[in-house]
């Protein structure tokens, strides 16, 4: 009896709710639970939300906070007056480092060649996955869905995902190489320290073509200092490619009142073949 009443109630809710859901524009759908200032604007400096276990909750839609500056000599890859910018780190993760990334000689030569080619062999151009840490710096949205034992990152591009297990499991000892690698996290206070291994060989980590090999391990230190931002400190240790481990810092900003809209690159990709035919002469 109780069950039948519950079913009827559920049906009624669905019946009433569906037309609203269908008419809503998720592109501008209000985000729930946003802390507000007295004037009702979002309070981005409010404390970060917490998970049921008391740890910071990283859930939200995140977007790289630094935009490519529009200067005449900004970069060779994207003319910001013509293309839309993202983080300068998307172009070169060594942007903030004096002397740039500490490449091994072979890697420096390869990057020089890739830059001269305007990165036309970039896996991203061929619609292949954006391996970590690239999604953190590309101007596409990243949605974090966080539970106490699992952090899932959803990406718009190619409708991809990444899983970070916070359940105590060890990293795999002899992993099958993969685009995302294998990630586990442990809390140090309010900072989630994520370790990743098991990458494929010769991944690109920026548009300059900086390589990352299967020998690489990555450490991401993630913290949410307030509601509106997620701070990341990413260390790559890849002795095959770099002369020393190096670290890059970045901040993600929360994107409110919107949703992911998938962007499946192979739908109508037509640049790669053309780019190959006009490859710069050496």
């Amino acid at each position, binding site marked *: 009896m109780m069950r039948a009443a519950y079913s009827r109630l559920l049906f009624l809710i669905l019946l009433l709710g569906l037309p609203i859901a269908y008419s809503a524009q998720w592109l501008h759908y209000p985000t729930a639970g946003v802390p507000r200032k007295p004037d009702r604007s979002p309070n981005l400096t409010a404390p970060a939300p917490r998970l049921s276990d008391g740890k910071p909750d990283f859930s939200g839609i995140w977007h790289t906070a630094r935009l490519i500056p529009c200067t*005449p000599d900004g970069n060779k890859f994207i003319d910001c007056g013509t293309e839309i910018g993202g983080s300068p780190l998307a172009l070169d993760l060594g942007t903030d480092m004096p002397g740039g990334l500490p490449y091994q000689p072979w890697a420096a030569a390869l990057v020089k060649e890739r830059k001269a080619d*305007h990165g036309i062999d970039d896996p991203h151009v061929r619609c292949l996955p954006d391996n970590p840490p690239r999604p953190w710096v590309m101007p596409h949205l990243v949605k974090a869905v966080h539970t106490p034992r699992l952090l899932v990152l959803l990406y718009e591009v190619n409708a991809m995902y990444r899983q970070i297990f916070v359940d105590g499991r060890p990293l795999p000892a002899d992993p099958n190489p993969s685009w995302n690698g294998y990630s586990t996290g442990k809390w140090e206070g309010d900072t989630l320290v994520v370790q990743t291994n098991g990458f494929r060989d010769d991944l690109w980590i920026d548009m300059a073509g900086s390589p990352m090999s299967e020998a690489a391990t990555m450490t991401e230190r993630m913290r949410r200092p307030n509601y509106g931002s997620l701070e990341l400190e990413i260390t790559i240790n890849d002795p095959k490619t770099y002369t020393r481990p190096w670290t890059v810092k970045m901040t993600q900003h929360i994107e409110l009142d919107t949703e992911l809209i998938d962007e499946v690159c192979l*739908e109508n990709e037509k640049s790669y073949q053309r780019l190959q035919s006009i490859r710069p002469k050496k």
Partner: protein
Amino acid sequence: MMMRISKICLSLTLFVTAVPALAHHSFAAEFDASKPVKLTGSVTKVEWENPHVWFYIDVKDPSGKTVNWGVEMGSPNGLMRVGWDRKTMKTGDVVTVEGSRAKDDSNNANARVVTLASSGKRLFAASSQGQPGQGQQ
């Protein structure tokens, strides 16, 4: 009043959530910023697809011959976030495109600005112009 508030809210939302869409390839690899083009013509086809929206327009060259140009814009989701949708431009619309020509001198261009002749409305295509945090070049 409700309509007015909705419009204000929409404007604010567009402003706040204007998330740029990076090309999936290097602009400089395919297009030449030193070859600006301004084309006016009738839309013959719109490909509202990833990774870039392409549309095609019939343009009369100086000799009066009709030439079909292909024009690249940003990704559909990036364009949606700055106010476009799949019905913004339709076959038969007359548009003016300002942008950069393909490096190989083919009849292809990357759009910076698209103006719809029917409404005179200037729409921003793949440009960063007018977006928060972006200066002008």
